[in-house]
């Protein structure tokens, strides 16, 4: 299936001389949830801005649904709904008016029934006649999502959707994103909450210092880069590691109550059998054991810290 968004060698240097993007190429598949991860200032928002037409690229091309986003901007932009990071709302307008405005702006004929459904999905319907200035921060964020959905976009950009949002609202937003994906909307979200990408995404791209460092299926990424830890709860605490066990990747933790063994899941031999045999030979017994997969966060920190 051809990509719904194809970013090809896009670069951006701001007038100040700041290089925000260095030849970024990226394909987004229709219907997927793509998470763009990166530290602050990595170029996430610039990249979204260029795709959506808010920022002029210094070089490269972007096509959306096969339409060049500069020469065929009308067709390209019609497909996209954008929820930017900053809360920016028409404070004096009512919820209903501002969402209806968005639909009109994108050239769609009025459809009150659709607007009603969007507002209901976002739990805003009760407040439809309220002025935006009277809403809470979380509600304003949802108003911005409603505006982005008002013209029935095939692609939804969510730039840091859950920054500064409470846990309950974050959960309900994740729920909404899944529902949208189920009806075929492609979703691109940026976040620096690893947990969010881990929870939501089908694929993950990591951007750092204006370059895409990696793009991978989430599960594959965790498997490929993942290290695992084997944690043994000892029957008797140890004061120090016995010399015969002083091998790499084995440390004593929890005041001598635990042994932690780190191994690579990609390795041909994990060394677990050998370790257990050695423990037994040394007379060290344990009452419990468990393993832990390294999280995306560990992987991410490893990538952007220049490993």
């Amino acid at each position, binding site marked *: 299936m051809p990509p719904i968004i194809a970013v090809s060698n896009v670069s951006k240097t701001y007038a100040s001389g700041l290089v925000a993007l260095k030849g970024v190429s990226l394909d987004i598949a229709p219907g997927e949830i793509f998470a763009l991860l990166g530290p602050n200032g990595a170029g996430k928002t610039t990249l979204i801005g260029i795709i959506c037409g*808010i*920022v002029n690229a210094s070089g490269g091309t972007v096509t959306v649904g096969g339409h060049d986003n500069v020469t065929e901007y009308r*067709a390209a932009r019609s497909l996209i709904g954008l929820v930017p990071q900053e809360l920016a709302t028409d*404070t004096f307008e009512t919820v209903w008016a501002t969402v209806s405005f968005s639909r009109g702006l994108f050239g769609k004929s009025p459809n009150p029934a659709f607007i009603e459904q969007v507002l209901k999905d976002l739990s805003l319907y009760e407040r439809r006649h309220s002025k935006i200035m009277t809403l809470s921060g979380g509600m304003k964020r949802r108003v911005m999502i409603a505006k982005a959905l008002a013209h029935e976009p095939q692609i939804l950009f969510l730039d840091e959707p859950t920054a500064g949002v409470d846990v309950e609202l974050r959960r309900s937003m994740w729920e909404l994103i899944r529902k949208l994906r189920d009806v075929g909307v492609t979703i691109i979200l940026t976040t620096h909450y690893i947990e969010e990408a881990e929870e939501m995404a089908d694929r993950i791209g990591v951007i750092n210092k204006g370059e895409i460092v990696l793009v991978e299926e989430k599960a594959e990424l965790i498997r490929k880069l993942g290290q695992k830890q084997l944690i043994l709860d000892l029957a008797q605490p140890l004061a120090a590691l016995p010399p015969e066990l002083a091998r790499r990747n084995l440390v004593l933790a929890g005041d001598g109550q635990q042994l932690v063994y780190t191994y690579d899941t990609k390795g041909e031999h994990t060394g677990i059998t050998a370790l257990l045999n050695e423990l037994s030979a040394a007379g060290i017994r344990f009452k419990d054991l468990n393993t832990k997969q390294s999280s995306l966060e560990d992987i991410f920190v490893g990538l952007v810290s220049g490993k």
Partner: protein
Amino acid sequence: MNWRGVYAIYKFEMARMRRTLLQSVVSPVISTVLYFVVFGSAIGGRITDMQGVSYGAFIVPGLIMLTILTNSVANASFGIYFPRFLGTIYEILSAPISGLEIALGCVGAAATKSIILGLIVLATAGLFVPLDIAHPVAMIGFLVLTAITFSLFGFLIGIWADNFEKLQVIPLLVITPLTFLGGAFYSIHVLPPAWQTVTLFNPIVYLISGFRWSFFNVADVSPGVSLAMTAGFLSLCVLAVYWVFRTGYRLKT
């Protein structure tokens, strides 16, 4: 053309105007009444006819122009500056709508409002002095053309300004003085010849002269020249708006 988008912007701007209806209608009406009390009755009684027109009636076209110019600039500049200030401009920039369409919605609404205000001032003036309009069609034509031109000019100011102070500078320091010096309250023929020549560099002279001609059939410069100057300024503003959206000046980084 994304006509629905144009209409959405137009409607949005008109709704903003409805919210501030009281101050936007009452204040020009009050200032018109004040001008008539001061110039028409108190001072105007001592002034002889100006170009064969009673002084009270003579100032009516100038007062309407004053209202049109200041309101067109103020409304259109605020209309585009405020979304930039709030950050809501992102939505307009990411929508499938061209720069000229955005300008059309925004400028159309600002011009509509100042035309309405101009007509209100005209009606208010009618309470004080008898008004016979010699060329009603030309009068409406000048009114509409001026409202559109200066709304475009205001739109450009709203794009150029990066703070609220700059938004006020041009209307206060340029438009209002040029209107007063442009013959709103006198015929430029009462000036010494040297100043008459200087005045001809003031574009507002042509607007007021042409507009006054449509009322009383008297003019400082020929109505054809007035029309040409207005059209010329309009074209300049259209070109500037086109350039703004082509380059993304102050709108896109």
